[in-house]
């Protein structure tokens, strides 16, 4: 759970950085997308780097979901009779929403891949953008409800990262003192805000018309 989660944190940081290329304009964004496909050539075939990443992410996802299912099942078995009254005193909202938040993110990721990678669904005019991912991005986020869906997903992602970052460090045994624990909590805030905030910038700036075709 912790190791696959840390891999995802690395991935979303890289992904978020790439998205910000939209601020540098159409050419720069499309060039970045193209570069991802030719990265490592001629040592790697076309899209080779992307496929290595995809296989790695799929394996990490399987490990992550499998661990989550095992933990959820153990939790359900460990408390078959629920409390009539139960207060939460020491836990963050993010820590208590990891399971449903994770399911929400999984559903979002399926939609996100259909939207931009597998089918390239363009909600405004049906144009898949062809070799121009920049157009697909702008068309997508010019649709207000698409921006809302993405922003809600970023709230879910931010919550998941807030607890996930701390929890992974704790699971790996790196928070053995009050100071290191406080630092791990702070890291959770930083990762959550930087990633969820960074991802939210492009949809917002498209919607208000600053990033445009």
């Amino acid at each position, binding site marked *: 759970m912790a190791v696959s989660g840390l891999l995802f944190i690395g991935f979303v940081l890289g992904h978020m950085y790439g998205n910000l290329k939209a601020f540098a304009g159409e050419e720069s964004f499309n060039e970045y997308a193209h570069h991802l496909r030719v990265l490592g050539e001629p040592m790697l075939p076309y899209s080779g780097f992307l496929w290595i990443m995809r296989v790695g992410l799929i394996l990490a996802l399987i490990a992550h979901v499998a661990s989550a299912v*095992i*933990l959820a099942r*153990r*939790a359900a*078995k*460990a*408390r*078959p*009779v*629920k*409390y*009539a*009254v*139960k*207060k*939460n*005193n*020491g*836990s*963050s909202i993010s*820590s*208590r929403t*990891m399971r449903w938040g994770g399911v929400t993110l999984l559903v979002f990721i399926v939609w996100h891949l259909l939207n931009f990678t597998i089918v390239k669904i363009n909600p405004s005019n049906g144009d898949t953008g062809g070799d121009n991912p920049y157009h697909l991005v702008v068309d997508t986020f010019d649709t207000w409800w698409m921006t809302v869906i993405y922003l809600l997903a970023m709230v879910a992602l931010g919550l998941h990262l807030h*607890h996930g970052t*701390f*929890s992974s460090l*704790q*699971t*790996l*045994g*790196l*928070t*053995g*003192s*009050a100071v*290191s*624990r406080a630092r791990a909590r702070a890291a959770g805030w930083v990762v959550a805000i930087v990633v969820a905030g960074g991802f939210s910038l492009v949809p917002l700036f498209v919607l208000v018309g600053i990033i445009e075709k």
Partner: protein
Amino acid sequence: MNLTLKIWRQAGPNDKGGLHTYQVADISADMSFLEMLDVLNEQLNEKGEEPVAFDSDCREGICGMCSLMINGEAHGPEVTTTCQLHMRSFKDGDTITIEPWRAEPFPVVKDLIVDRSAFDRIIQSGGFISANTGSAPEANSVPAPRDKAMRAFNVATCIGCGACVAACPNGSASLFVGAKITHLGELPQGQPERWSRVVDMVGQHDHEGFGGCTNIGECAAACPKEIPLDVISQLNKDLRTALKNGH
């Protein structure tokens, strides 16, 4: 003060059980929570009803025998054990819901009493040091660094009451196991069995049916002895080291 109590009544391990409502009057703010239940039980005795069964022993907060989930909080609203909780923490007219610890490895024996033998079996699996019997060794013959000794001492305050399990949404006993691992692992006397200890205790913990830790932190907030969450990190670190070295 006058209170409404909603108490879990369950005749035996196989009974279904349910919440029953009782009224108690003229409760003094200086009474402990258990004394308030004693008042209720005297009333029930006079009426010829079965008194409410609950655990208690020392009633001075050091034995770990008392339990009770009080209004959804293990040991109630203060950072202490139920026996050291006083009625001044409540207001006249309050409704108080009292339930037993809820966990599959802590089966209900009767009413509010649960069987915590699972903790004993975890201790038996590795929560000890092996030492030759005989006269006590000279106290300073085994030096322990002060910071390690202090940390060991702080987490050795765990009284094994089970509040961590009761509060944990996953029903995990990781804070309890972590406290024992840290307590013994910080001291020189605990080193020879350190790595087999963590593997055996975690194995027994999982075997008993406790849930897995997701680092939520309810346990540390509920602990009457304020055992910090970093003992779970220590537990994970020791387990990782032990498994890496083939234990």
